[in-house]
């Protein structure tokens, strides 16, 4: 992962996997994963403070081995204000240009989906525990759903 920094005076930062390019996953069928996120460093009160990282936008995209996007979870309210809600793109027929509403989706949920339903081989045997712990932390401290 590469990130653009932690300066709170900058309104928005980025953190991306593999320089923003898709990553090949060990899976059958072969799949590619793209992870792009924006975040802000904001002041927070109490247990959250004095500073916290706040997600500002995300794209989690799954592609086939030819690089064709199969589906993608998006939330980027500043980039496309007309679609300011978390949404799902399914690249199939008439659905391709539809922004299907979803709740907020975490990266942990995408990784769990890949492992449990799309036959991606986990790197660690204790993947379930690792994902559960970080998901619990995320849910405890996030300020919107």
């Amino acid at each position: 992962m590469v990130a653009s920094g932690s300066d709170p005076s900058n309104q928005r930062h980025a953190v991306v996997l593999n320089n923003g390019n898709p990553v090949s996953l060990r899976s059958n069928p072969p799949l590619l994963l793209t992870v792009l996120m924006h975040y802000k460093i904001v002041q927070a009160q109490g247990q959250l403070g004095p500073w916290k990282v706040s997600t500002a936008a995300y794209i989690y995209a799954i592609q086939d081995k030819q690089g064709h996007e199969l589906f993608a979870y998006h939330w980027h309210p500043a980039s496309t204000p007309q679609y300011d809600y978390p949404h799902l793109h399914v690249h199939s027929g008439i659905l391709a240009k539809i922004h299907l509403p979803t709740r907020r989706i975490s990266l942990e949920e995408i990784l769990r989906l890949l492992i449990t339903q799309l036959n991606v081989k986990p790197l660690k045997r204790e993947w379930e525990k690792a994902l559960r712990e970080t998901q619990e932390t995320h849910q405890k401290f996030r300020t919107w759903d």
Partner: protein
Amino acid sequence: MRSVVSFDSVKGMKKAGKNGYKVLSREEGQKLLDRQARRYLRMSGPEFARKWKAKKIENPDRPEVMRVAFLLPFGG
């Protein structure tokens, strides 16, 4: 976040710190934005940033556009 998925190739991970990520300098970020804008949209990073801010990118919700637009905080 700890890595739990097997990646065949993740460029730059060797340079990443113990937390699994590397903070790019402004210059490195500008190079990344320029490289990806040329790769996905066949324009330079500064040209993309200029057009994006002026809302002159057609169909900005296209995957290849969003892929570059997400890199603007690195050097746009």
